[in-house]
């Protein structure tokens, strides 16, 4: 059976339309093509509508052919649309290219914690991890807590106005964080494990290593069986957390009125790794000593416990250690800040170097 002319025409039409689709360069052109070949007035639509007019034996073949052409065209157009859209997106993305090296949007550039705050938090976290709680206390303090209950005799020179700021005969600016030892023990019986960070004051004329206000962190641990060895272990953990995992600590005899025995604690130098030398030069941080003096400590003097015996601190039954360190000293050591006075000048050129 010969192919009907209508079917041939449809195939021609299909080929023509396929060429037209392939020739389109933009989505808008494609719409024209679609209307031309698939629209209501298109030849294909007309052909489909007029199938009924064909002889009965041709209807089936022509109908199938018309539908095949239609389906094929629709698929092609869809494909072509996708392809053109992808091209267009590609072009737009190319146009949208930015200079990625320009600064990002700093709607709120972040600020900085003060170096002292940063170190204070670091120390707090270390000691919290070691089982200590963090206390704060008054900076305006009674002479009683600052000196008397810490076993400073009435004639102790630290009490003189050359060494202590006084607000009245018995009220002063605390010269160390140690008065909180006594306040903490008064407030709660043993066992007690606390650290006390905070500001302290001494009437030193400012120079590179003295300022009239600085920060300390006090530690106190009292229980039935706390030993000097425990102090050593706790401070070893502290030194390793703050100055690096291979640090050692060294205890030397020292003297403080409120501890007995008293010790000075050195940490092995973290710059020269305790060798005293960097290359062939003397280590600038430890001055060739291999050790850096870092804090004072000791076993709490029985006389101090005697002041809080009412609160459950019988010196025959409980014992413990205390230590105190200068936060600025650690800052100066760790970061090489050369002059203490710079810390309170609050120059943003310094502030912005730390605590981001």
């Amino acid at each position, binding site marked *: 059976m010969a192919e009907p002319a209508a079917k041939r025409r449809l195939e021609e039409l299909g080929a023509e339309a396929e060429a037209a689709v392939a020739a389109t360069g933009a989505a808008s052109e494609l719409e024209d093509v679609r209307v031309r070949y698939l629209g209501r007035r298109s030849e294909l639509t007309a052909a489909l509508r007029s199938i009924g007019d064909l002889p009965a034996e041709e209807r089936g073949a022509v109908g199938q052919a018309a539908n095949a052409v239609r389906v094929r065209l629709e698929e092609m157009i869809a494909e072509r649309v996708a392809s053109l859209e992808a091209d267009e997106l590609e072009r737009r993305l190319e146009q949208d290219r930015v200079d990625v090296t320009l600064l990002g*949007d*700093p*709607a*709120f*550039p*972040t*600020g900085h*914690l003060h170096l002292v*705050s940063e170190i204070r*938090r670091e120390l707090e976290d270390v000691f*919290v*991890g070691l089982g*200590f*709680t*963090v206390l*704060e206390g*008054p900076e*305006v303090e*009674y002479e009683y807590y600052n000196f008397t209950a810490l076993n400073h*005799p009435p*004639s102790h*020179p630290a009490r*003189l*106005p050359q060494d202590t*700021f*006084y*607000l009245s005969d*018995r009220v002063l*600016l605390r010269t160390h964080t140690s008065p909180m030892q006594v306040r903490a023990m*008064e*407030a709660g019986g043993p*066992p007690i*494990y606390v650290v006390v960070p905070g*500001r302290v004051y001494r*009437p030193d*004329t400012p120079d590179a290593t003295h300022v*009239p*206000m600085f920060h300390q962190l006090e530690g106190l641990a009292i*229980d039935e*069986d706390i*030993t*000097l*060895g425990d102090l*050593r272990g706790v401070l070893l953990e502290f030194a390793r957390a703050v100055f690096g995992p291979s640090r050692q*600590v060294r*205890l030397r*005899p*020292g003297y403080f009125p409120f501890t*007995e*025995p008293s010790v*000075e604690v050195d940490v092995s130098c973290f710059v020269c790794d305790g060798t005293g030398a960097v290359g062939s030069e003397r280590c600038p941080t430890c001055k060739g000593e291999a050790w850096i003096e870092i804090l004072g400590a000791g*076993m709490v003097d029985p006389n101090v416990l005697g002041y809080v015996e009412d609160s459950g601190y019988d010196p025959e039954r409980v014992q413990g250690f205390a230590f105190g360190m200068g936060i600025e000293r650690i800052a100066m050591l760790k970061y090489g800040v050369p002059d203490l006075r710079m*810390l*309170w*000048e*609050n*120059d*943003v*050129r310094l502030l912005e170097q730390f*605590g981001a």
Partner: protein
Amino acid sequence: MRVPVAWLRSYCDPGLSAAEIADVLTMSGIKVERLHRAGVGDPSAFVIGRVLDAERHPNADRLSVCRVDDGSGEPRTIVCGAPNVAGGQTVAVARPGAVMPDGTELGEAKLRGVRSSGMILAEDELGIGTDHSGILVLEEDGLPPGTPLAEALAIADELIEVEITPNRPDAMGVYGVARDVHAVTGAPLAEDPTAFDVEPAGADRAEEHAHVEIADTEVCLRFTARVFEDVEVGPSPPWLKQRLMAAGQRPISNVVDITNYVMLTCGQPLHAFDLDEVRGSRIVVRRAREDEAMTTLDGVERRFSSDVALVCDSEGPSGIAGVMGGQVSEVSAKTTRVLMEAATWVGPNIMRTSRALGLRTEASARFEKGLHPELAMAGQRLAARLMVELCGARLVPGTLDAYPRPVAPRRVKLRLGRIGSLLGEPMPEDEVHTVLERLGFEVAPDGSGRLAAVVPPSRDGDVQREADLIEEVARIHGLDRLPATLPARRRAVGRLRPAQRLRRRLEDALRDRGLSEVVAYSFTSPSALDRLRVDPADALAIRNPLSEEGSVMRPLLLPGLLDAARHNAAHGRPGLRLFESAHVYAAAGAGEGGDGSDPVQMAEAAPRGALPARERHHLAGLLTEAAPSTWRAEARVADFYAARGLVEALLAIAGVEWRAEPGARPFLHPGRSATVRGAADGRELGWIGELHPLVAREWEVPAAAAFELDADAIDELEPDRGQDGYRDLTSFPAVVQDIAIVVDEGISAARIEAAVRAGAGDLLRSVRIFDLYRGEQLGAGRKSLALRLEFRAPDRTLTDAEVAARRSEIEAALAEIGGALRA
């Protein structure tokens, strides 16, 4: 203190290098600050020589050309300028190449045409004395020419500079230091140089020559004196001069040098009077009369307060007790009769005097640590031996000894078990014995784990209790040998309290919003408060400030932030965002929370936890620019709303409901400032505002906005930080409606919001002002606000009718405050 190592070794030589000895000392309680060499370089270039002959230099009257036998076989020619050089003398010779104490190297030189090969030395050139009037002429002593000079004189020495803690006056003498070396190393310790006395001569008695009396026993515990006659004042022998020089003391004369030598040996300062200049041959110890004056040995006339202890003769002061003698009875070349004083002064009194006069001497540095009265006689014994030996003096029999309350030796008991329980490591009983005995304690065990120790006088001030004895044992045993353990921590848990965590959160929030933290002095100046229009009289004042700049405790953080802003503006950084987190201070009883006690009237009794002042932890910020300009946005100015935005963020983090009331502080812009109050009880939490232009001008900062919050007050509100539990906001949709209303300019956003809420009832979930408009068509004094309302019910989808009903209620409520819905 400087400890010459050669001197130290003469008492205890552990066979260690100076550096090793320094380490021993540091680790047992005498901190070594520095170790250095003193004296000449390589000692082998210095030898004993004999002057064969000395002739006048052909071309120079004052120079001599000497032939010197230095043991090398060939006599060497040395040109010498000393007037006392003469043939036959035994002298000290430096060969060419010798390095002198000042570091210069000796070369060969032609002096006025004569080649000089070496140098005949004066004692100052060797660093062993101060005399430069002539060359040092040595005793022959059978030392042949060529003998190393170091065998006769300590021309090269090592010095250990130590820092002595206040509890160790015994270590203020070389012998005391040697005792620690002995205790640690076990190397033999020489007999105590103060143990032996000298036989007096004559039939007279000291009492016949002089009289001593303590009139004030509160300043003097003991006053001893000995009388010496036939004293020949002159220079000290080289060995003595060398020791003094090495220890940092200038040799003066044999008598004065003896007093210093005794002090440097055992720590007991002495004073020598010319007895013929002690008026009335009578010494009285008393305190000064107010404004009494005297000229001290250093030639300075000094005036005294009535606290100062004086050593007086029958006409007036002749010395400041324990600090410095007076010129009036100073030993001189003419002196033949010496009254040697060894006294025991009360430490704190000496310290006060020394500080008040600004005069700290070797003597006061020792007395202020508190010496034991027994030490005075120890000093007398050593001094007497040297007076007889070096000054040819006759010791008059008897010691004048005013000692009103003799001190008995102290006995301290020690439970051996306590050593282990305190240190963390038990210590064998025999080691405990050995250590204590080496330190000079007499130890008597009782066989039941206890012992009693008699404390040597030089350690009496420091060792009084069991804990003190344990420290002695521990420091000699070596603290560094103790184990490193961690506490058992049976009941303790470490954590930050909620308030501490919140404070960190708030600080971090400010940091993350672009503010940098400052730390400013807690004190400020009254004038800074004046400039802020805050009354300085309300601030706590420091009695002894370093300066007016830091004389009052700050009642708010703002001045420190302003100072920091000024500093940075002056250094070219005007756009600033700063905050501080710190205490502020007020008198106790000011505001709520204080305990009401007046700090000035606080009794001596234990305060029992009372607080002497009202301290609050504040959090404050200062902006001179809210955000910096960027390549695509202008800088945001620091205005009220920039500061308010920060406060909103902080209080949202804290979970505090709050409100802002207009007007706040005298240092703020009156129309652009607010007091921050807690919504629940109206408690004041702080303030927000733009700086008053006059305040900004005072600090030379551009217009700025600031805020200050009382972090303690926020904590006291015990805010719940989103801990109410879950609320269902997703099951049913919200209905959002925007409305625009026109109201009078004077109606605040807070009143509008309150009206909307009153009208809307429970269904209103939120209301937000998203636009503010002023324009001619509204008419003067009117403003338009656009509000976005969100309605929501927890249990159903709202119907249009429900929302419409709410909306008309809102319109009615707004009408009550004069608000009209805008078409």
